[in-house]
């Protein structure tokens, strides 16, 4: 119960920080920036406590099941953002990373489950190593994604392609706003959750629930269209480039994050293979999650090749980094939802 309160508090704090991060850029407010960082630090501390509590409760690394992994991933995002912001002063990266942390922790919080017994295979030190490595890798790729998204916006401004800037900013704001609206709708809908005969959690939505969710999404869409239009107008001018980090910095951070993610993901997959060998007796079982993680890893490998051998620095690299996250999301979430396999531990 206490853990749930902490999680709820964390989610609210992350939402507030996201708003402050936007205010910092929109109103050129140093105060907003300073408060945002402080608030985020407080939220991070609270979040850390909740993770430690969970760790102690379940007697293993708290990275099994969707709720735990989402929580850990969002925790990682906040940590990386704070570090990057401190080291490189790229506060604007918070425009994407902090809302990202909010959404992940919010969804994780919504999926909260009291600790239950998990399969014996999971009660192993391999869990922390394998999942931990992968999650840090995902966070690194998310950072690369954010930096690359900012890169595209900044490049459009500097190349005076203002139409493109307007579209991008509008798209971003609408995506965030609609997502937030949908989440609020979901909170109000409060569907019944029960387990079916296989032990999976199933969400039962009534018509009223769908209506609420739809209403939330719709409201989010309308409000964010208006806000996005205003933001797009404000961003599509030469002076806005001063509020975003330099192209060179964004490009460097993006590529370094990918190098880090590539190494970590590779090690993570390897550790998974070793672990599988010890419990399933086989290195590789062509489980969907394994496959898509490998595909993502190869995709980022291609990024590194193109970048260094074909000199794909700048916009092309940014597009690759943005596309790469699609594979990551697929490997992380998509397979659990659409392709159950050996990785199905819920």
């Amino acid at each position, binding site marked *: 119960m206490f853990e749930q309160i902490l999680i709820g508090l964390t989610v609210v704090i992350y939402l507030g920080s996201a708003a402050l991060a936007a205010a910092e850029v929109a109103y*050129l407010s140093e105060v907003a920036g300073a408060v945002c960082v402080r608030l985020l630090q407080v939220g991070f501390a609270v979040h850390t406590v909740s993770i430690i509590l969970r760790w102690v409760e379940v007697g293993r690394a708290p990275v099994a099941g969707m709720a735990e992994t989402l929580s850990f991933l969002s925790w990682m995002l906040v940590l990386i953002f704070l570090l990057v912001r401190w080291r490189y002063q790229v506060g604007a990266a918070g425009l994407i990373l902090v809302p990202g942390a909010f959404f992940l922790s919010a969804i994780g919080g919504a999926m909260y489950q009291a600790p239950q017994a998990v399969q014996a295979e999971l009660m192993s030190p391999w869990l922390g190593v394998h999942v931990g490595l992968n999650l840090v890798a995902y966070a690194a790729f998310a950072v690369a994604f954010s930096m690359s998204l900012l890169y595209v916006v*900044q490049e459009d401004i*500097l*190349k*005076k392609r203002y139409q493109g800037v307007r579209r991008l900013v509008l798209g971003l704001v609408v995506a965030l706003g609609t997502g937030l609206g949908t989440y609020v709708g979901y909170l109000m809908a409060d569907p019944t959750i029960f387990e079916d005969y296989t032990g999976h959690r199933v969400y039962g939505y009534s018509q009223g629930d769908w209506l609420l969710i739809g209403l939330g999404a719709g409201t989010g869409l309308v409000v964010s269209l208006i806000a996005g239009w205003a933001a797009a107008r404000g961003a599509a*001018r*030469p*002076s*806005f*480039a*001063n509020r*975003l*980090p*330099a*192209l*060179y*910095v964004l490009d460097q951070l993006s590529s370094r994050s990918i190098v880090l993610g590539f190494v970590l993901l590779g090690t993570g997959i390897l550790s998974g293979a070793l672990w599988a060998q010890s419990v399933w007796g086989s290195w590789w079982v062509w489980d969907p999650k394994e496959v898509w993680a490998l595909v993502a890893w190869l995709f980022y490998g291609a990024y590194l090749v193109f970048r260094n051998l074909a*000199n*794909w*620095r*700048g*916009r092309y690299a940014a597009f690759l980094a943005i596309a790469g996250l699609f594979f990551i999301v697929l490997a992380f979430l998509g397979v659990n939802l659409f392709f159950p396999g050996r990785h199905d531990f819920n």
Partner: protein
Amino acid sequence: MPLAVLGVNYKTAPVEVRERIALSLEGCQEVVRDLTGRSDVGESVVLSTCNRTEVYVFGDSLVLREAALHCLCDHTGVAEEEITESIYYFEDHAAIHHLFSVGGSLDSMVLGEAQILHQLKESYSVAEEAGATGAIINKLLRRSFEVGKRVRTETRIGESSLSIASVSVDLARNVFGNLRDRKVLVVGAGDMAELVVTHLKAQGTSDTMVANRTYARAQELGERFGGRAVPYENLGDHLTEADIVISSTGASEPVITRSTMEEVMRRRKNRPIFLIDIAVPRDVEAAVNDVYNAYLYDIDDFQDAVDSNLNERHEEAVKARVIVEEEVEQFEDWLSSLSVVPTVVELREWAGSVKDEEVEKFLARMPDLTEDERNKVSALAHSIVNKIMHPPTVRLKEAAGDEEVIRYEESIRYLFPLNGKTHTRGEGSSSEEE
């Protein structure tokens, strides 16, 4: 409250009028001396810059406008009829607001400029020297300096770049981040190009290469920048090396074409390049901006950037106006508290005189008291008077900012036998009572 300003500025009068009504610092000093020499004007400061000439006065409200105008015209030889159309005259709240706006650079031709504060300070010190300032003007002007400082530190109104050279630096930093050790190439020559190079060097760029059709000219410029001359024929090589290129030749055809840049970009392995084309006609083909990782800005683009930055200043000006409003309110509170002080002083003086009288009478009737006992009696009386006077004193001072305070003062003057009529504000504070 007879505080006023009379003046002309760039908004109300064209330069032909402004230049005739302008005053040097000495001229300003003469005007304030003249003005404060009159019995009905207490204090004055005159501010005269290329954009405005303003006379700030404090004195008898009936004559201020006329006196200021007369003095100004007297000292500049301009007839009053000639400038009456361009004159603005503000009193009290509006005058304070105007001065604080001026000090906060909100009334300047270039929003957020830094010079006006310096000019204000000079005008003030000249007036102070001439003995033309007193409690009110002193506080007012000093407060205006504070407003200027607050506006500059609490808002970003003066920060955005409005010149081509500083905008160039901003843009270069938006592309490259830190400019330390970045290489610069100058093609051609010119004052603007030199200015840009100077600004860039201040950010830490190294190795300034100069290319010119005339090699001797390139050498001359190279020496000036602490850089080196490079042969004009190998422009492609230099473009491959440099990160920032400033082009300012007199050529009628572009010296850098799209095809050249694409070839250069291949050799550069897509490392970004920033081109500053300040030549008219343009030196760099517009299509170069479409080349991967090449960023091109011509004169019009710089103008757009400057306009955009000016807009930002206008947005910051909103915050500045809030500061000005705050300060005006605070100053007005202070001003009204001044009128309270004489009333409070007189009330306490009266109470004190009553106490002295009664204690004297009492002690006279008790000749056998010891020294110690006499002191104790005095002390008791003193203490009682203080205790009784304390609450109304505090209340009056607290109410100093309210409009009600006049009524409190009138009530006290009605209820207690204080000397003098109800003061009109400020009279008692500038010159001595006659």
